């Protein structure tokens, strides 16, 4: 078994267990009262992946509705933990002027969302990194 880190040398299992992604699903609201890059994230389970609908948070050029993207991949929380927690997901959005790689992960009940915002054409602005926090909406919200 080839490894990049010693901890990846784990006992072989017959097949990769399916990652339980249901914990990611739901409506996630920003924890910050102030305007931010992303205001809300709605996540649905779709087969082995996630449908991630992002809404802007009123800050800067963030569109009100980013649309829905399917997760490219969902990562488990550990090498052998496909039976439980979903660790993270990755998806991409093409917004006016910018491409966004979005990575979300669960941490202590929060959805932590990082974005890497890259301008498609040269501009006098910087490509930008954001990290924002979201709590799960109460049922009925």
């Amino acid at each position: 078994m080839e490894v990049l880190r010693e901890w990846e040398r784990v006992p072989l299992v017959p097949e990769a267990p399916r990652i339980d992604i249901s914990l990611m699903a739901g409506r996630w609201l920003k924890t910050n009262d102030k305007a931010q890059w992303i205001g809300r994230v709605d996540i649905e389970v779709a087969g082995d992946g996630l449908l991630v609908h992002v809404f802007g948070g009123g800050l800067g050029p963030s569109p009100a509705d980013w649309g829905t993207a399917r997760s490219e991949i969902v990562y488990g929380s550990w090498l052998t933990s496909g039976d439980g927690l979903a660790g993270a997901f990755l998806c991409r959005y093409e917004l006016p002027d910018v491409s966004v790689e979005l990575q979300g992960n669960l941490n202590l009940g929060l959805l932590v969302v990082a974005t890497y915002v890259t301008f498609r054409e040269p501009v006098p602005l910087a490509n930008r990194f954001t990290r924002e926090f979201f709590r799960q909406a109460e049922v009925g919200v």
Partner: protein
Amino acid sequence: MSVIEPAASTSLDLSVLLGDWRNTNALGGISRIVCEPAAEGRMTVHCYGRCLPEDRDWGVVDAPVFAFEFEGKEAGAFSAVYDFGFEEVRLQVNVKAGVLVVVTLNRFNDDSGRVNYFNREFFYRKPR
């Protein structure tokens, strides 16, 4: 091997990111990350995986840098991708309070049965 091919946006000050970063956890998965400047305002990263009996050299890859604001002049984050065939590692990294926060998204392309996994580690900059 970058996550996103960067457009030629404004050039950023890399000083917050550059240096020889060491894992705060002696048992961490990545032992060391070296960030160095490259041509045209770009940056490269050189990672070492903690393996026994000695660390595995992952090599040097291009690392697009990002500011915390669109009007920012200072880079505070970067991304990078290592593709070894049997495993792809995406690094998503930012500096917070002088600590390098390193998220890895690890995808196995072999038949080992290992689960694709997410991990976060913390690094301090080795004093010169």
